[in-house]
C-alpha cells in the first residue's frame, strides 16, 4: 500500500504550483497547456500522456486551492469521451459538456429529447459553452456531439458562481451525432466526478486554512478567536472532515479503472462525501469568520461559491447518496 505521489507526479505538482503563482485569468490556460498539464489529464489513447486518477486528483486539487476558474473539467470529459467514441479530439481548445437541465434535480431527458439525429430542448449551466470547439450533450440515456455552429442552436451566456461563464443551450431540431449510450462512458464521466471532487478538496483545504488563519489572528474580548473553546472544537471537527474528504478522493482516484460497479460505488461515495463536507465547510467557514466572511472583497466569498458549485456539479450529495443506497450505477 502506498499513498505517496510518484516522482513524476511530484514534478508535475511543482510545475503546476509554479504556474499558478505566475498566471491568472486569460494567461492561465495557455500556460497550463504549454506545461503539459492539460495533456496530463488524458491517457495516451486519448492523445495525452497520463490520465491516471492520481494525476487528475493532483491537478484539480491544486487548481481548487488556487481558485482557478477554467472549463478544464468539461474539456477533459469531452476529450476522453470523443477519443473513446473514435472521434478526433480538437486540440488546445475548450470543449463543453452539457448535462444539467432546468426543471429537474439531475434527471436527464426532462427538458430535452432526441428525434432521429437531432436534439430539441434545453440544457443549462454549460461551462465554457461560448468558447467551445465542440459540445457534448446528454439525453435520457445517450451522449451526443453537437457542433457549436449547428443550425437551431442558440447560446445564452451568463456568469456562474464559480467565476466561469456558462450558458443555456437552446436546441431546436439541432443536428447531433450520437456517440453512444451514456452508460458506455462511465470512465470519462467518473474522471469528471473525480476532477470536481478534487477541485472541491482543494477549495475545502483553502477555506479551512483561511478560517484557521482568521481564528488565530482575529481578537475579540482581548483573545484570539481560536482560544474560545467552542470555536476551537468546531475547527477541530472541520479538520476531521477534511481528512474524510481527502480519503474519499483517494478512494475514487484509486478505483478509476476498477470494475464499473466498484468504481461507481467509490464515485458515489466520493461525491456524497465531498458534497457533504463542502456544504459544511461553506457554512462553518462563513460562520466562524462572522461578517467579514460574507464580503465579496474577502477571499472566502469566492471559495464559498465554488464549494456550492462543487457540490452541485454532476449530481449532488443527495442524488448520489440515493443511488448508492439503492445499489444503482452512477449513470442511468
Amino acid at each position, binding site marked *: 500500500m502506498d499513498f505517496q505521489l510518484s516522482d513524476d507526479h511530484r514534478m508535475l505538482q511543482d510545475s503546476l504550483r509554479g504556474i499558478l503563482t505566475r498566471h491568472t485569468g486569460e494567461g492561465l490556460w495557455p500556460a497550463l497547456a504549454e506545461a503539459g498539464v492539460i495533456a496530463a489529464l488524458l491517457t495516451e489513447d486519448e492523445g495525452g500522456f497520463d490520465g491516471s486518477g492520481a494525476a487528475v486528483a493532483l491537478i484539480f486539487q491544486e487548481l481548487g486551492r488556487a481558485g482557478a476558474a477554467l472549463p478544464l473539467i468539461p474539456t477533459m470529459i469531452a476529450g476522453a469521451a470523443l477519443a473513446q467514441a473514435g472521434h478526433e479530439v480538437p486540440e488546445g481548445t475548450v470543449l463543453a459538456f452539457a*448535462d*444539467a*437541465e*432546468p*426543471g*429537474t*434535480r*439531475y*434527471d436527464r431527458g*426532462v427538458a430535452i429529447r432526441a428525434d432521429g439525429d437531432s436534439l430539441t430542448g*434545453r440544457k*443549462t*449551466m454549460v461551462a465554457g459553452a461560448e468558447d467551445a470547439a465542440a459540445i457534448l450533450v446528454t439525453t435520457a440515456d445517450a451522449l451526443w456531439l453537437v457542433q457549436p455552429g449547428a443550425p437551431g442552436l442558440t447560446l*445564452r*451566456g*451568463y*456568469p*456562474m*458562481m*464559480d467565476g466561469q461563464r*456558462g450558458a*443555456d443551450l*437552446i436546441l431546436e431540431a439541432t443536428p447531433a451525432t450520437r456517440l453512444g449510450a451514456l452508460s458506455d462512458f462511465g470512465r470519462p464521466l467518473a474522471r469528471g466526478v473525480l476532477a470536481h471532487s478534487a477541485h472541491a478538496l482543494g477549495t475545502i483545504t483553502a477555506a479551512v486554512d483561511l478560517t484557521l488563519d482568521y481564528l488565530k489572528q482575529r*481578537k*475579540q*474580548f482581548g483573545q484570539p478567536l481560536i482560544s*474560545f473553546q*467552542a*470555536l476551537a472544537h468546531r475547527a477541530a471537527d472541520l479538520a476531521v472532515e477534511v481528512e474524510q474528504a481527502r480519503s474519499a478522493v483517494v478512494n475514487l482516484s484509486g478505483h478509476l479503472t476498477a470494475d464499473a460497479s466498484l468504481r461507481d460505488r467509490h464515485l458515489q461515495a466520493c461525491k456524497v462525501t465531498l458534497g457533504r463536507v463542502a*456544504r459544511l465547510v461553506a*457554512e462553518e467557514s*462563513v*460562520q466562524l469568520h*462572522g*461578517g467579514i*466572511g*460574507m*464580503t*465579496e*472583497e474577502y477571499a*472566502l*466569498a469566492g471559495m*464559498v*461559491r465554488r464549494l*456550492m*458549485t462543487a457540490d*452541485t*456539479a*454532476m*449530481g*449532488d450529495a*443527495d*442524488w448520489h*447518496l*440515493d443511488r448508492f443506497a439503492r445499489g444503482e450505477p452512477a449513470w442511468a
Partner: protein
Amino acid sequence: MDMRFTPDELAFRDQVRAFLQTELDPELARKVRLHQHLTKDDMEGWHAKLHARGWLAGNWPTEFGGAGWTAIQRHIFEEESALAHAPRIVPFGIAMLGPVLQKFGSREQQDHWLPRILNGDDWWCQGYSEPGAGSDLAGLRCRAERQGDHYVVNGQKTWTTLGQYANMIFCLVRTSTEGKKQEGISFLLIDMTTPGVTVRPIVLLDGTAEVNEVFFDDVRVPAENLVGEENQGWTYAKYLLTHERTNIAGVGFATAALDNLHRVARAQIHRGRPLAEDPVFASEIAAVEIELMAMSTTNLRMLSAAAQGQAPGIESSMLKIKGTQIRQRLDALTRRAYGGHALALPATGNEGQPQDADEVLAATATWLNNRKLSIYGGSNEIQRGIIAGALAKG
C-alpha cells in the same frame, strides 16, 4: 390552556389581510419574494401606506403616534406581512431608535425626531459595529470629544445596513477610556450630511450592496444630539438589543420559505416524478416543517408570557438560534431542490442570466444572503453564551 386567537385577534388578522390584499402592489410583492433589489422608493412607498393606516409603528405607544399593538398583534402583523411578501419595515427608526428615544430621550428629542421617523423625513441607520468590535461590541473605539457645544467624532462604523439611503445615523461612540470598556460609551445622533461623513458600500457574496462602512473624520455633532447621559450609552444599547424583538424567531419568513419550498418540490422532477414525492427529500422537508411547528408555538408561548408581564429572559436567544437554523435549513433545501440548475450567479447586472431563472436565482441569492442570519444581531455563538450564562447561574 387555549391555543386559539381571541375573537379580537382574529378580527385584527382579517384587517391586516384585507390591508395587504388591497394596498400591497403585486409587482412589489414579487420582488420581495424573489429576493430582488428594492429601491429606496419601494421601501418609502410601503412605509407611507402603513403610516397612512396608522400601522407603521405597531410597537410604539399611541402617545407617540404608534399603533400600541399587543405583542400578539405585532406577531400577527409580521406573520401576515411575511406570508404576503410585503417589504419588511426598515427597523432602524421604527423598531430601534424610536423605543430608545421614548425611554431615554429628552422631550425635545422625542418631539423633534419621532414624527420625522413616521412621516419619512429621516431615514435612519445604525452605527454599532466597528471593524475591531463585532461580537465584542463594547470594544468599540470610534470616539467623540466634547468641544464646547459640539462633539467631534472620529472613527469608523461598519455593517451599516442601508446606510446608503440614510440621512441620519445613531451611533455608539467612546466618550471616555476610563473604567470598564462598557462605561465610556455614549449614544449620539449624527446627521450624515455633515462634512467629514463618508459612506462606502460593502458588496456581499450574493452580489448585493446592502451594508456599508461609515467613516467619521472630524465630524461636528451638536451636543443636543446626545441621547440620555454621557457615558451611559451602553445601557441604552442593551435596551435596544434586548427589547423590540418580537420578530426575532422570523416565523412568518420561515413559513413563507416553507410554502415556497413545497411549491418548488412539487414542480421539480426527480426520477420522473415530482421531487415532493421522493421519500428522502420529503422527509427532510417534513423534519424542518415539524421544527417550525414547534418553534411557532415556542414563539407564541414566549409572547404570551411577555404579555402577562414576565420579564424577557433567554427566550429571545433561544428563538434567534432555532429561528435561524430553521430558515437556513429551508434555504439549503430550496437550493438543493433545483439541483444542477442552481449554479448561476445572482445580482450580476447586465452580463446575462439564464432563461426563466428568476426563481432559481432567488433560491441561490437567499441561501447566500441568509448566511447573515446566524451572524448579525448577536451571532448564534453569542446567543449560546447568553443562554449558557443563564443556565450556569440558574
